[in-house]
């Protein structure tokens, strides 16, 4: 341990504490930033001696991280990064704050995977999926797959647990020597029409199979398969996975987490049992009440996530659609038109959030009965009926709703 690193850690903790004291924020980002300023190698030093798993992908990072932490904690304490702090600053803050846990699970923002993997030398990397998200920041989905591919190729690459159903993920993982393939599903195929390796049109068999006629890249045979709520492990044992959180997509995420936990010797039975006890993930899927009405918060950050969230929402319930377009959301809400809001026809919808006018126009063309309300709390009161309300919100709009239900 160097004096510089000790100083960096202390400075980061002080900055984080000051930030919290003055009410400027959670302090995670500023703390990590100060630590890295004093010692640029702080993330590497904080990771030394630990066995880490990194989790990345467009959707399901926080959920899968939480599931994997639950599985690994059946063995021993695990350090992890919450609150969406998945950039190097947040990772550094999490690792420096917990000095004792030997195991760690870190979710990583997609483009930062190479930098983080190089710095912390993880034992395993879990690749979930890749689809369009925040195009004003990342420009192209395929480019992300490319930088993953580069980072995970070569003899020093970590073990990879990867979704065999997503061609972009498969291509990213093909350079790795040690891959566990999991058939975690792909609900959104519109960003993998052409082969990420050669550009040819992928052939799909209508089931989950896909193949590139140009270069032969094809869906690998998965070691773990998922059918509905049943997960089959490599030894052929099937598990009926009952999670506390909704959505078939999360059964796939649970399978990926179980496969990763298996690298540390956690049995699937034990892993799924631990995962079943998670009722919500940082407010996602949270069931609560507002003015006596049952209410559920669903986070959806991009078209693939919206399709999942609409599918999870109860068919009769009115829907509050809350959309912002801040930097963390992506500045351009054109993606609203990639989401099949037509599925909400026959239900009442309330458009809210800073880009509620974009939502209202989208709902108008989708033929969904709706009104537009600026204030998020008023939007809940405007939902028709007296039964449950589903709130579907993108990232920063979701944070607003967590405050609304907390302050209620």
């Amino acid at each position, binding site marked *: 341990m160097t004096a510089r690193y000790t100083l960096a850690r202390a400075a980061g903790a002080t900055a984080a504490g000051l930030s919290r004291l003055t009410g400027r924020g959670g302090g995670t980002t500023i703390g990590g930033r100060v630590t890295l300023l004093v010692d640029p190698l702080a993330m590497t030093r904080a990771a030394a001696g630990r066995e880490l798993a990194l989790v990345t992908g467009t959707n399901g990072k926080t959920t899968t991280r939480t599931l994997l932490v639950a599985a690994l904690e059946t063995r021993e304490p695990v350090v992890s990064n919450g609150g969406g702090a998945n950039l190097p600053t947040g990772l550094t803050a999490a690792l420096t704050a917990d000095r004792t846990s030997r195991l760690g699970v870190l979710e990583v923002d997609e483009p930062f995977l190479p930098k983080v993997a190089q710095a912390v030398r993880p034992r395993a990397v879990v690749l979930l999926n890749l689809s369009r998200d925040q*195009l004003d920041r990342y420009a192209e989905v395929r480019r992300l797959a490319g930088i993953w591919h580069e980072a995970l190729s070569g003899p020093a690459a970590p073990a990879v647990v990867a979704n065999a159903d997503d061609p972009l993920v498969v291509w990213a993982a093909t350079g790795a020597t040690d891959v566990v393939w999991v058939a975690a599903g792909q609900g959104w195929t519109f*960003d993998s029409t052409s082969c990420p390796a050669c550009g040819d*049109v992928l052939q799909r068999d209508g089931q989950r199979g896909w193949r590139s006629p140009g270069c032969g890249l094809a869906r690998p045979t998965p070691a773990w398969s998922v059918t509905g709520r049943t997960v089959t492990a490599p030894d052929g044992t099937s598990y009926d996975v009952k999670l506390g959180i909704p959505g078939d997509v999360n059964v796939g995420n649970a399978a990926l987490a179980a496969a990763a936990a298996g690298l540390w010797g956690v049995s699937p039975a034990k892993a799924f049992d631990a995962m079943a006890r998670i009722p919500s993930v940082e407010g996602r899927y949270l069931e609560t009440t507002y003015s006596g009405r049952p209410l559920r918060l669903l986070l959806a950050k991009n078209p693939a996530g919206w399709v999942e969230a609409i599918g999870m929402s109860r068919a009769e319930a009115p829907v509050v659609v809350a959309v912002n377009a801040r930097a963390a959301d992506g500045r351009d809400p054109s993606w609203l038109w990639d989401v099949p809001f037509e599925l909400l026809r026959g239900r009442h919808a309330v458009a809210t959030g800073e880009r509620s006018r974009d939502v209202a126009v989208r709902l108008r063309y989708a033929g969904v009965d709706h009104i537009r309300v600026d204030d998020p709390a008023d939007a809940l009161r405007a939902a028709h009926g007296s039964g449950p309300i589903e709130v579907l919100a993108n990232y920063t709009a979701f944070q607003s709703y967590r405050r609304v239900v907390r302050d209620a």
Partner: protein
Amino acid sequence: MPDAVRIALVFPSLLGTYGDGGNASVLAQRLRWRGVEAETVDVAVDDALPEQADVYVLGGGEDTAQTLAVSRLADGVLARAADAGKPVFAVCAGFQILGETFLDGAGAVHAGVGLIDCRTDRLPGSRAVGELLGEPAVDGVVELLTGYENHGGRTLLGPAAKPLARVRSGTGNGDGVDGAVQGSVVATYLHGPALARNPALADWLLSKVVGDLAPLDDSEEQELRRERLTALRRARAAWWRRQWRPPARGT
């Protein structure tokens, strides 16, 4: 006027990265609301482009998708549609590939479909990302054109193509104008999608197929447009304030 107006959405899986498929939905709904039957046809990348569509819509896409789309459009269906005066509406990557040449991700020059007299290379400096506002340069559209642009291409028009708009804010083609109009082919860098943010442009395209159109209650679209124009004005005012801040006094 055709019985049902058929709107072909060209290869949405390749050219649909920025919600531009919404342009086809907007065109169809605006006809239906006026009692005109309309259907949208999503053309899969393995399928031939239908000859019998009345309007063709192309959206934005990624680099590899662009070259693939051009190879699939080489069958001449789109060129015959343009010759027949059917509206072809293309956005961003869709715009670029309808030109004479464009660049792929590696910087190699590719031949385009050749329906627009234009050539696309790279914008000097960084990508154009942000709100784009233009003053229409075509007869029949009077409302400002608003949307969001996100591209690294610079598109220079030749003499046969006319600009769709003069840029008031943003980058557009890169030389002060946005888009192109050549015969019945109309192109732009506007996402949003363009026709959801600009119902007047949608109706202008539709009038080429069905003639004069009754007005619709577009109050929600107008509210969105007002909000976007106000946001743009605020952002520009903030930008100017930053420029006018006196420089820090050094020692």
